[in-house]
C-alpha cells in the first residue's frame, strides 16, 4: 500500500487549506463591458402598486406551472414565496412597523420585483462548465439552454442574486431562470412583465437610455412632477404624470458587481429589499475565472493530471504486497529495474 497515515492526513489537511486560501485581490482579467445595444429594464419600486400582473403574465408567457402553498390543501392561488423552478418573477414586500405609508423605511412598506438581473459580467455564465448559460453578445440577455445543461447546478451557487433555480421536485429537473422573454423580444414584443405593467414600474428599454432616465428621476427633488413612460422607454404608449418619490440617491445595478442590465430605483434602502449591497464594483468572475478557467483550459491540465496518476499507478502496481501474492506486473517491473 503506497499510502501511509502521515501522507493521508497531510493530503486531507492540504485539501482543507486549499478551500480556505484567500484569492489574490488583483483581478485575473479585465471586467467585461456592456454590449452597446444591451436591453434592460428599470424597475422603479416607487411606481409599483403590487398588482402582480407581471407575476401572472410571466407565468403565462413562459408556461410556468402555478405554485401552491405546501401547507394548504386548497389549490386556489398561485402563491410562490420566492423564485423557484416554477416562478421566474416575483413581487415581494418590505414591511416595517405599522406599515402606514408606501415608500418609507420606518413604519412603511415597499414592493420589490425579483428576477434575473442579467449581469454585465455574469457569474452563472462563468461558472457553467458547459455552455448552457450564455450571454447574448448583442442584447446582453443571459440565457439558459436546457439542451446543453448537465444539471450540475453550479450557476445556482454562483449567482450572487440567488436567481437560477433548479426544479427539485421532479426526476428530470431543469434550471429555470428569467430569460427576459427573449422569445417574445425575437418577435418584436416586449418582455411580458414590462408589457402588462400598468404604471411603468417595469420599464423596458436600452440600458443606456434607462440609465439616463433613472438619473433624471434621481436629479429631481421629491414632489416634483415627472412624466413616467410605460411599457417601453421611448415607445408610443401613453405616459402618465406623477411625482418624484423620496428616492435613495443611488441607481442599483449601475456599478454593483460590474453592473446589471436590470436597474432598480427605490425609496427604501436596497439592502432592506433583499438586494446585496456590500459588493465590489466588478463581477466575481473577474477574480475567479483566471484560476478556474486555466485549470480546465482545453481539458489539458486534467488530462495531464490523469496521465500522471496513470503513470504512478502503473509504476507501483507491480510491487508485491505482504501477503506474498504474485505481482501482476513483474515483467514490467523487471524491465524497469
Amino acid at each position, binding site marked *: 500500500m503506497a*499510502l*501511509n497515515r502521515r501522507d493521508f492526513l497531510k493530503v486531507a489537511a492540504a485539501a482543507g487549506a486549499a478551500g480556505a486560501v484567500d484569492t489574490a485581490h488583483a483581478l485575473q482579467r479585465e471586467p467585461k463591458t456592456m454590449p452597446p445595444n444591451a436591453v434592460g429594464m428599470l424597475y422603479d419600486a416607487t411606481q409599483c402598486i*403590487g398588482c402582480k400582473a407581471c407575476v401572472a403574465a410571466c407565468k403565462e408567457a413562459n408556461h410556468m406551472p402555478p405554485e401552491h402553498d405546501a401547507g394548504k390543501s386548497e389549490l386556489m392561488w*398561485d402563491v410562490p414565496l420566492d423564485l423557484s423552478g416554477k416562478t421566474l418573477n416575483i413581487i415581494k*414586500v418590505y414591511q416595517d412597523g405599522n406599515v402606514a405609508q408606501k415608500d418609507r423605511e420606518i413604519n412603511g412598506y415597499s414592493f420589490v420585483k425579483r428576477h434575473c438581473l442579467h449581469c454585465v459580467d455574469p457569474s452563472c455564465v462563468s461558472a457553467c462548465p458547459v455552455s448552457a448559460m450564455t450571454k447574448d453578445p448583442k442584447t446582453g440577455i443571459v440565457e439558459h439552454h436546457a439542451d446543453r445543461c448537465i444539471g450540475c447546478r453550479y450557476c445556482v451557487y454562483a449567482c450572487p442574486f440567488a436567481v437560477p433555480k433548479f426544479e427539485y421536485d421532479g426526476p428530470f429537473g431543469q434550471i429555470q431562470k428569467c430569460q427576459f422573454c427573449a422569445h417574445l423580444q425575437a418577435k418584436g414584443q416586449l418582455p411580458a412583465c414590462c408589457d402588462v405593467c400598468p404604471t411603468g414600474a417595469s420599464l423596458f428599454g436600452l440600458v443606456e437610455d434607462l440609465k439616463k432616465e433613472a438619473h433624471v428621476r434621481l436629479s429631481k427633488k421629491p414632489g416634483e412632477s415627472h412624466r413616467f413612460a410605460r411599457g417601453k422607454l421611448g415607445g408610443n404608449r401613453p405616459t402618465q404624470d406623477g411625482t418624484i418619490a423620496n428616492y435613495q440617491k443611488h441607481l442599483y445595478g449601475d456599478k454593483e458587481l460590474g453592473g446589471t442590465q436590470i436597474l432598480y430605483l427605490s425609496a427604501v434602502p436596497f439592502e432592506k429589499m433583499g438586494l446585496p449591497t456590500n459588493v465590489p464594483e466588478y463581477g466575481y468572475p473577474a477574480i475567479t475565472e483566471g484560476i478556474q478557467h486555466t485549470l480546465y483550459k482545453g481539458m489539458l491540465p486534467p488530462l495531464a493530471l490523469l496521465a500522471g496518476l496513470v503513470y504512478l499507478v502503473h509504476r507501483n502496481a507491480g*510491487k508485491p504486497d505482504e501477503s506474498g501474492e504474485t505481482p501482476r506486473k513483474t515483467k514490467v517491473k523487471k524491465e524497469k529495474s
Partner: protein
Amino acid sequence: MRKQEMSLDGYEGSAGGVTRREFLKFCTGIAATLGVPAMGMQIAEAVTSKQRPPVIWLSAQECTGCTESLLRSTHPTLETLILNTISLDYHETLCAGAGHQAEASKQASMKANKGKYLLVVDGSIPTKDGGIYCKIANKTVLAHLHEAAAGAAAIIAIGSCASWGGIPSSGPNPTGAVGVSKIIKDRPIVTIPGCPPNPYNFLATVLYFLTFNRLPELDSKGRPKFAYNRLIHENCERRPHFDAGRFAIEFGDDGHRQGWCLYKLGCKGPETYANCPAILFGDVGPGAWPVGTGHPCFGCTEEGIGFTKGIHELAELKNVTPPTTYPRITEDKGKGATVTAAALVGGLVGAAAVAGVKFARKLPESSDEASGGRSDKER
C-alpha cells in the same frame, strides 16, 4: 351613410310597429354583443333584405327551455325576429300550422332553400335502439336530423343538450343521448351551450351569419368565441372577494349574506367558459344571473361539469393567478427536519466518521515501513 339611410327608408312600414330608431338600436345592440364595432348599419341592411333567410328549428329530447328563454328576449322580441328578421319555417312550439301542414311546410322550405337554410337544433339526439325514444311525425328525430342537415348551410346546436348531450346524456343515459356534433360530421356546427343558453348569444350568432355569410370564430368545442372565450370567474362581480380570500362557507352564513365569493359552496365559475356575468339574463338589470342571486354557478355550458359534477364539488381552477398577499423579502421555507430524516443523516455521518477512523488505523504507523522498504527492494 346617406345611402344607407335611404335604403332603410322603406323599412318603417314593414316593421310591424317597430320604429326606425328602435330597429337601429336593436342592430347596434347586437353588434355590441358580438363585439364588432360600427356594424349596426351592416346588420340592419342584412336583416332588411327582401328574402328573409329561412330557418328550420328541430326539437329533439328537450324541455323547450331554450325556446322559452328565447321568448323572453326583449331586443329584439321574438316576434320581431321571426316575423321580420328570419323566416322561421318550422318550429314545433311556434308553428302556426300543425300535423301534416307543419311537416309539409318544412319539406317545402327544405326543398326550396336547399343549401341555404340555417338549421337550429335543440335537445339531445337519442341513438340507442335506432333512436326510437324520440319520434316526430312517425319518424325518429335521428332521421329528421340527417334529412335536415343534408341541405343546411350551417347548423346551430342551441342548449347544452344539443351541444353535447346535456341532462339526458348524464347519469345512466338510457336513450343513448348525444349532441348534434356526434352525429353530423360534414356540416359546420356552432354550439350555444347553456341551460338555458342566453338568448342573445344565439341571436348574435344568427345575425352574424346573416350579415357576413359565415360563422363567427369558434373555440375547440364549437362555441362562438365572442360569448365563450372567457371564464365566468374572470368577469364575476364577486371576484374581488375571491382574490381577498373572503368566502361564503355555507348558504345563509354571514359571508353569503354579504355577497362574498361562492367558490367554497361549489361555484364552477373558475372552470366554466361563458359570458353570463357580462350580459346577464332577462334584461332586468344588475345581479340577474345565478351567481348574482347567491347561487354558485353549476357549469351548465361546460361538458363534463354541468349535470356531471355535484353542485357542492369544488371547481378546478383553469387559470391560477396570485392572490392579494405578498411574500416577505426573506421567507422561511421548509418544515425543519423530521425525526426520521435527522436519524438517517446522523447515522450516515456517524458511519462515515467510524469508517474514516478505522481506515486511518489500518495504515502503517510511519512512512519508513512502506516507502523506505520499497526503495530498498527496488534498488
